[in-house]
């Protein structure tokens, strides 16, 4: 099975997200980037499918953030082909514009399955996976956490997540695009030494694709951080003192004796 996976770069939320002086965009100048978490699961699901049933996995990414490291890591995990789309801007495109660019490259790959993370935390206007499916004219289902291709390759059984640990079992005609939330196993660890070795041998192809100018009926008036600690009464002190305070609160509230 020919599988294409989109992997995006997002700022690591371990660090604060900075806002530009204009207060209308984020400032990613000092951000540390990482692969979008749900895309990482999409890649893992693709590699698992390849290991089980054969085929190829092609990873497509915009040349943004720390994409080279992400792509070499994907190769170390088992991706067969790495493609970047040249992109020279300080901020990633909105999902609609990104979908148009990714579609130009993925169309040429003629994959039977396209896997994209169900969400990215920096998406404000719509989400990439369903928009890319629409661009490609492919069937779509999102919030998926398991994929089982049929033996004949014409369909796949997918499991769509619902609340309270319920899963909807669905049959999808291929080719299709799936929005992935989780895989059959967590993203695999690969040793740094293997990634470094692949940096010397793996080839990253460049494929041009036009990223349309942003056009939106949504205008950002202001970005800001939510007020921190608005409600919580912050308990301070060394761990033992804080623990004693919490124990006192639990006793007072009747949670424990």
């Amino acid at each position: 099975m020919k599988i294409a996976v989109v992997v995006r770069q997002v700022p690591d939320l371990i660090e604060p997200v900075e806002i530009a002086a204009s207060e209308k965009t984020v400032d990613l100048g000092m951000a540390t980037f990482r692969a979008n978490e749900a895309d990482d699961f999409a890649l893992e699901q693709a590699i698992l499918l390849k290991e089980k049933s054969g085929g190829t996995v092609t990873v497509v990414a915009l040349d943004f953030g720390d994409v080279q490291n992400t792509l070499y890591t994907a190769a170390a995990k088992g991706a067969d082909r790495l493609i970047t789309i040249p992109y020279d801007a300080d901020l990633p495109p909105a999902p609609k514009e990104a979908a148009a660019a990714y579609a130009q490259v993925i169309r040429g790959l003629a994959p039977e399955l396209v896997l994209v993370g169900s969400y990215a935390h920096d998406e404000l206007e719509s989400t990439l996976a369903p928009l890319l499916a629409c661009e490609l004219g492919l069937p779509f289902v999102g919030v998926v956490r398991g994929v089982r291709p049929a033996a004949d390759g014409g369909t796949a059984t997918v499991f769509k997540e619902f609340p309270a640990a319920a899963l909807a079992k669905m049959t999808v005609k291929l080719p299709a695009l799936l929005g992935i939330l989780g895989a059959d196993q967590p993203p695999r660890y690969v040793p740094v030494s293997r990634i470094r070795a692949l940096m010397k041998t793996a080839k990253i192809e460049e494929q041009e694709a036009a990223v349309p100018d942003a056009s939106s009926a949504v205008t950002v008036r202001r970005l800001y951080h939510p007020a921190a600690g608005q409600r919580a009464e912050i308990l301070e002190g060394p761990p033992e003192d804080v623990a004693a305070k919490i124990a006192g609160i639990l006793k007072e509230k009747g949670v424990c004796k």
Partner: protein
Amino acid sequence: MSSQDILIVAETSRGQLADVCGELLGAARALAALTGGKVVAVLPGADGSALAGGLAAADRILLANAPLLAGFSPEPYVAVLEGIIRAEGPRAVLVASTSVGLDLAPMLGAKLAAPVVNGCRAVSLADGALQVTASFYGGKLLADLTVTAAPAILLLAPGAFRPTLEKGAAAVETWQIPSPLAAGSVVFEEMILPAGGDVDLTQQDVVVAVGRGIQQQDNLEIVEELAAALGGAVAASRPIIDQGWLPATRQVGKSGMTVKPKCFFALGISGAPEHVEGMKDSGLIIAVNTDPAAPIFEVAHYGVVADLLEVAPALTQAIKGA
């Protein structure tokens, strides 16, 4: 129908109206009061007649009944909703950030060339323009937005709007689906419910939940000891479940369990809206996080800015010694 109407996409869960319908109606009533329009609730399904009463806060309830809509499948749902939205021409379409809504809203936006805003936490009107406050970056940023096109498709952040006690005219109509629906390329087969046997988080008085701050699976033992000392159960936010460190039945949040224990500990959990949705109504919420700006402190009653790996063992000792 009016261009100032607010349309909601109602959802069902296991044969009942989903809880999010209350939030959708609450947001819609507030916005409709500003636009001067009506609230129109659309309920797709096999036959929603018996559930229409639960949507009485709406002025009109459109039942889109078809056997093919009995289980969720994107293509027929989008086809029906696109037809309704085109015919009704509402000012805004409110959709829940659920497994269903997250598929529908972007696809409807693409079909209708309509703007879609994720994570909406507040909606209002200023000088005739729709104003939206939305959260992104895991709840770490808020954006004040103006949406100029109609209909605006708004994905409401989990738990951001309160259900309304208001009643609407609640006129029930059956939407005539113009042509036979095609099954499409995605076919719903069945809903698989979790096997029993694990702890029922919804019945616990104390829930001790962990997130990324636990760092590694081995550290879960620290939290298990605290839960045991409190007579509670261990739960987790999505990243821990995705790592396979705890079963899906232990997930608290939008896609997991909704819990309302007497006491909820959020240890090393940042407080993304999807998690908060599942625990915000707990009696007492105590959060421990190294990040003083973590959104979890907005919903917690008490907070500790510290490493859970230091606080949890100390608390276990304090409880045992009490």
